[in-house]
């Protein structure tokens, strides 16, 4: 148990919780924005206009090819160099995560809709459902069911990616952990184990209910 006392020294517990809040705040805002914008992107990709389609494709591929760290530097440092506009670290982080998240959500939305067989549309229409009714009762619920696990998976990836923001001066939970380990590295060289265990526990407490939820949502229909 050597080193566990580090967790209870000074404000360390509170600082870890603060860091967790930074991580969560950045992730939640980004996930929410990604969902809103991603649905638009997905809808655009389903538009029959080839120019719009190609533009969306290019956007998604560029985001995919470039590492998130590069995006973060471009947004936080690059924009300031080019335009003199100075974004705060958190704003830059949210923009980076949202650009990335929205492209992923867009592609997920597109594939969720494309995976719905055409006869689902046709049988709905032939029952006399109006377009809004067709989408509300038949198409959206099916698309959503396919989307939920993917979105939750993406969300956990976004939460993890948030750790990058310490490079632009934003202190999230992992960085707080490193600070605590480092501040005590001479007196308690084994503290790292306990600090990481606590952070793991914090992530687990957040992510486990999410994965339970997604499992429940996908299993519900017995398919």
């Amino acid at each position, binding site marked *: 148990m050597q080193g566990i006392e580090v967790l209870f020294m000074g404000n360390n517990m509170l600082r870890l919780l603060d860091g967790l809040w930074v991580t969560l705040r950045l992730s939640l805002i980004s996930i929410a924005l990604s969902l809103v914008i991603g649905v638009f992107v997905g809808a655009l990709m389903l538009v029959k206009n080839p120019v719009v389609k190609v533009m969306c494709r290019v956007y998604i591929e560029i985001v995919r090819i470039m590492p998130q760290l590069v995006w973060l530097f471009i947004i936080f440092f690059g924009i300031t160099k080019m335009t003199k506009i100075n974004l705060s670290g958190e704003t830059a982080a949210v923009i980076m995560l949202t650009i990335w998240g929205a492209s992923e959500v867009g592609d997920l939305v597109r594939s969720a809709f494309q995976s719905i*067989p055409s*006869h*689902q549309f*046709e*049988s*709905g*229409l*032939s*029952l*006399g*459902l*109006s377009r809004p*009714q067709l989408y509300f*009762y*038949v198409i959206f*619920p*099916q698309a959503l*069911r396919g989307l939920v696990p993917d979105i939750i998976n993406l969300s956990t990836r976004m939460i993890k990616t948030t750790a990058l923001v310490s490079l632009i001066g934003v202190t999230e939970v992992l960085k707080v952990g490193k600070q605590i380990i480092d501040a005590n590295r001479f007196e308690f060289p084994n503290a790292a184990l306990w600090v990481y265990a606590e952070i793991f526990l914090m992530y687990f407490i957040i992510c486990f209910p999410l994965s339970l939820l997604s499992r429940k949502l996908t299993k519900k*229909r*017995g*398919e």
Partner: protein
Amino acid sequence: MAEHIIDIDHITKRFGDNTIINDLSLSVEQGEVLVLVGPSGCGKSTLLRCINGLEPIQGGSIKLHGEPVEHGKPSLYKVRQKIGMVFQSYDLFPHMTVMKNITLAPLKVQNRSKDEVTEKAMALLKRVGLDGKADSYPSELSGGQKQRVAIVRSLIMNPDIMLLDEITAALDPEMVHEVLNVVLDLAKGSETNSGGTTMMIVTHEMAFAEAVADRVVFLDGGVIVEEDTPQEFFHHPKTERAQRFLQTFTYSR
């Protein structure tokens, strides 16, 4: 009698340069069971889809009880409520129970009362032998059971006509019978005061076609080649093309 349910007047349907239906005219009377047969790609399935407004037509007109069926027009949603359609592929909504599948349209489209619709649904399910499956999801049903539910889902709308598009083509052989029996039952009109259900059926089951049809229409190349009673058509086909087509269904030793 002899009231026309469907009037098809000189319609033409093209996919690009490919003419699928060529200047075709056809009428279906109240209570009539019309079976469409013909080789693959002859346009019989496309014809059903045009009648339901799922495909636009390039010429002519289709009328249901004198009202035009026009692809893309708002009036189409009204007309479609009077046309029941069952497809070859299993098209139940996978996220809804059997009961929800059946009651969705009557509740949301026709605004009927929940009690009445549920009662009617149970009666129909009983008629097709599936009254125990009301709370099952489609994934828990066999192919034959799914198609019987799909028939019920159309029937509950009280359609003027049912369009059945190769509804047994995707089924395992042992399930074909149970579905066709349901259709035969509908054709006879075993329900008290109502007569037989008016139907247009596309099928490759020739024995079934002969049993169920009041009239057989043989399509080839987008035109009606022969039109007759089932007895005449299946035993004394008049055109060479029909003879050749029917031969493909018998083994020649």
